[in-house]
């Protein structure tokens, strides 16, 4: 085990005992940070690794949350059991929307995703098929339970959320270092070259979209379980912008960066509560300052190093 592998442990250990020293409010702030960390990580796959600008991530988050809420309130299925269903719903939705637009580049794709986000939000407000509850949202989502324990207090959710964050980090770490992750990085840097080397770019881009969206859908489920009420106000364009800012500010493509980004973007406005009216102003100024001093993000992604086994004498010559 080398030093770099110890870093996750060094972060996880304090997080595990932290709630013992905090009151319910700060625990709930950490819960919020955890939720946005997961959303940031899922968006990071799309924006950071595949280089696809997605400013409509809140739409997939909303699909997951509403799937959980609707199925739970109509059929009474425990909300945590619906995790895979929500992921699947958001993933399939992403597949359907992204399939025709995935070939768009950069800012064009960005504009379309903004449109998708708004369409979803407005559909929710207009009570689509009479099941989304219109602008009042859906209420009375049953509290989740694990075995006999009903999750109720911020402390319960703290462990649920942060265990899920750890799982997210683990899964996305594996993805990053897989063939899939390398292919995404390749097409981000140069998709013509990638195509030329036999990487099916359309397929990989689409898969990045679907996996990222599906994960956001699962986060939506946890959000719905935590709030027990959801409404369209929680899935506005601003939410998409926040997630995007977390990725860009923290360091596009870098997992520690995204986690730090979530801490700052969600944590700072809470820290600035004392400024009352000006809190968003102070927050904005802080963000601008950070972007001016660190354009590449706070913790930019590092180039990967692969050790080549020592070359035997006589080998490696053309």
């Amino acid at each position, binding site marked *: 085990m080398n030093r770099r592998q110890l870093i996750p442990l060094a972060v996880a250990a304090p997080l595990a005992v932290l709630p013992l020293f905090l*009151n*319910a409010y700060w625990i709930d702030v950490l819960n919020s940070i955890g939720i946005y960390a997961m959303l940031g990580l899922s968006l990071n796959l799309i924006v950071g690794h595949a280089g696809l600008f997605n400013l409509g991530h809140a739409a997939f988050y909303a699909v997951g949350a509403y799937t959980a809420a609707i199925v739970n309130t109509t059929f009474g299925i425990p909300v945590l059991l619906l995790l895979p269903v929500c992921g699947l719903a958001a993933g399939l939705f992403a597949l359907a929307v992204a399939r025709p637009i995935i070939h768009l580049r950069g800012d064009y794709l960005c504009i379309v995703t903004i449109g998708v986000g708004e369409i979803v939000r407005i559909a929710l407000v207009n009570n689509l098929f009479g099941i989304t509850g219109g602008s009042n949202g859906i*209420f009375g989502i049953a509290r989740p339970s694990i075995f006999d324990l009903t999750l109720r207090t911020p402390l319960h959710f703290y462990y649920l959320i942060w265990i899920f964050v750890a799982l997210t980090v683990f899964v996305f770490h594996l993805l990053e270092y897989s063939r899939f992750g390398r292919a995404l990085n390749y097409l981000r840097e140069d998709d013509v070259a990638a195509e030329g080397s036999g990487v099916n770019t359309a397929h990989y881009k689409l898969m990045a979209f679907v996996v990222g969206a599906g994960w956001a859908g699962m986060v939506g489920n946890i959000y719905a379980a935590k709030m027990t009420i959801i409404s369209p*106000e929680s899935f*506005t364009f601003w939410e998409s912008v926040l997630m995007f800012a977390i990725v860009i500010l923290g360091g596009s493509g870098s997992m520690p960066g995204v986690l730090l980004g979530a801490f700052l973007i969600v944590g700072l406005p809470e820290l600035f509560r004392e400024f009352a009216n000006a809190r*968003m102003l102070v927050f904005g100024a802080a963000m601008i300052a950070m972007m001016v001093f660190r354009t590449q993000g706070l913790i930019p992604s590092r180039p990967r190093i692969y050790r080549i086994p020592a070359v035997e004498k006589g080998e490696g010559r053309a």
Partner: protein
Amino acid sequence: MKRVILLCLALLLVQGTAFAADSIKIGLMGPITGPWASEGAEMKQVVQLLAEELNQKGGLLGKKVEVVTQDDGGDPRTAALAAQRLATQGVVAVIGTYGSAVTEATQNIYGEAKIIQIANGSTAIRLSEKGLKYFFRTCPRDDEQAKVAAQAIQKMGSKRIAILHDNSTYAKGLADETRGLLEAAKAGEIVFFDALTPKEQDYTTVLTKMKSVQPDIVFFTGYYGEAGLLLKQAKQMNWKVTFMGGDATNNPDIVKTAGKDAAAGFYFVSAPLPKDLPSDEARNFLDTFKKKYGNPPNSIYAALAGDGFRVITQAIAETKSTDPAKLADYLHKDLKDFPGLTGKISFNEKGDRVGEVYRVYRVNDEGQFILQP
């Protein structure tokens, strides 16, 4: 390095806020930022002004009253955080907030922390149907509006009634509720009940359809944009029928859309505008508000937040206690016809305000909204 300095500065500021040694803390949760920021700003002005007045008179139980404001951003997630924050700041009661979904996200947090919550702009019926002991609201519920609308229709002596909504949850709910009440009262006949499609430009089809069944009155429960067009196009068709609207038509823009000619004679049901608040308390308060901030409050929901503050301070003064159970008991049972800014206030066992807040307005020839007796 700069970042570190910034962070230290922020921490210092957080630590540095002075804690008043001995005071009664009342929380105010409102949309200080976000889409409804104007509501939140006014709520804060009203409550702070009332607190200042109270403190000048010597405060409560010999202590100063301190208003702790937290921003809910008009969003359920931020509201839940604001509620947790207030719950850890030792407040006795919380006033707020605006928006039913936002309020709902905080109800359980206050309930579990045994903090009295007095909502000011959350009209969804379900909020008070959960049996929460510490939840109150100074605003009326959606079904209250239907009651007033149905009474107004009966009072006008209308026999053939057309009801038109726009399929939104709120408008359809109001339409359904009003129809039910009219049918139960056997007052006239509902000759038309249907929806229009919002955001269209031409409503002559639906108007023609309504005209063919010859109603005496058309009750439209949707929003002011469509209402303005309906009035204008009915006038162009030369159809003279009385139109009435719900409180979503309470907006000066309706006169702009329809034109003064067509808008004249339009009735709508709404909570009173701040300028028409009934009591002496309200008039005095409006004067001081105007003196301090330069303009009268625009929103009735800010005045309702002020009423929330007044009833809870009244309860603390009367019970000489800050025990939430005693205060809730007092508000449920003993507070009767308290002279509030928005009229007399009493609460029923669900925490809903008793008595009619809604009034009927009529648009006059100059396009002004005139309160009907």
